[in-house]
């Protein structure tokens, strides 16, 4: 009893030292992680206007004639904004058709249908591997696209994307 009531005397041994070192290292690591948790090495991406062309094939003439410069167009599936029409060119719609006499495959005009080629400009983000509109739609030549504008809609392909570099 008397021994237990004697004043507390802390004897430091080697295991206490190891535990203290481990705790200190863990604490330092946690502090480092927390201090850096809000930071990122990714710089804020800046958008730039990108010009591209979309070909909408086999449109009804009334729908094709409704396309006007200044129209805001969007993806009719997921409603991504795709930019503003700068110019539109209309031409007779064509599709590949087989000539079974000669074995050639030729373009044949489709009666009463038009193909519309839209020049579009849209603010985009650019990475090393892709160009995406600020709304999140990735642009690539050859990609199938479903477009809707004021009073018209159609399906086609992206047929050109400008390769101009971003302005400094």
């Amino acid at each position, binding site marked *: 009893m008397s021994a237990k009531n004697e004043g507390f005397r802390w004897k430091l041994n080697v295991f206490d030292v190891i535990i203290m070192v481990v705790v200190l290292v863990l604490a330092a690591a946690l502090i480092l992680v927390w201090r850096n948790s809000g930071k990122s090495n990714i710089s804020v991406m800046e958008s730039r206007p990108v010009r591209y062309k979309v070909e909408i094939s086999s449109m009804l003439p009334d729908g094709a004639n409704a396309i006007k410069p200044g129209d805001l167009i969007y993806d009719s599936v997921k409603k991504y904004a795709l930019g503003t029409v700068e110019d539109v060119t209309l031409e007779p719609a064509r599709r590949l058709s087989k000539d*079974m*006499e000669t074995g050639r495959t030729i373009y044949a005009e489709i009666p009463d249908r038009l193909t519309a080629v839209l020049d579009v400009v849209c603010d985009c983000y650019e990475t090393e591997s892709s160009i995406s509109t600020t709304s999140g739609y990735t642009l690539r030549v050859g990609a199938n696209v479903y477009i809707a504008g004021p009073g018209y809609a159609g399906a086609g392909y992206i047929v050109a994307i400008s390769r101009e570099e971003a302005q400094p």
Partner: protein
Amino acid sequence: MKKIIDQNGRLFGKISVIDVLFLLVVAAVCAAFYVKFNVLDVTRKTVDTVPVTYKITIYGVRDYTVKSLAVGDLIYDKDYSGEQPVGKITDISVQDAVRAVEKTDGTIVSGPVEGCYDVTLTLSAQAIRSSGRTLVNRTYEVNVNSERVFNTKYATFSATITGVSS
């Protein structure tokens, strides 16, 4: 006879069982660090990549796809490579496209396709070559005759791998 663990929990009356367990845990952690940063590192360096070239052919595309490709563009596999390119275009070869057509007399001929082209891209990449297999970036297997969807920054297309060489 002396007890192995005495009434104070000490082995042979000298060292605490808890202390022994703690020492074992510390030793295991040290061994794990050693294996991770020494043994595994040595294993990884034993397989080196070598430069390879391979060809992919895009069949029957229109001129806009041809114009969207350029030497120096990086190629990505749409489904399997993620943000890691599987090659860089070093050469572009364009030929008029042909397509099999069944004629009215029942024969099948390979006839020209107006306004369409077959485009062969030569790609360079780093790969592991082992037992006849080519693994670009160590994981992406290149098999002749395999048809895949590829992307560049500017274009997307379906193409067939048509040749692999070192």
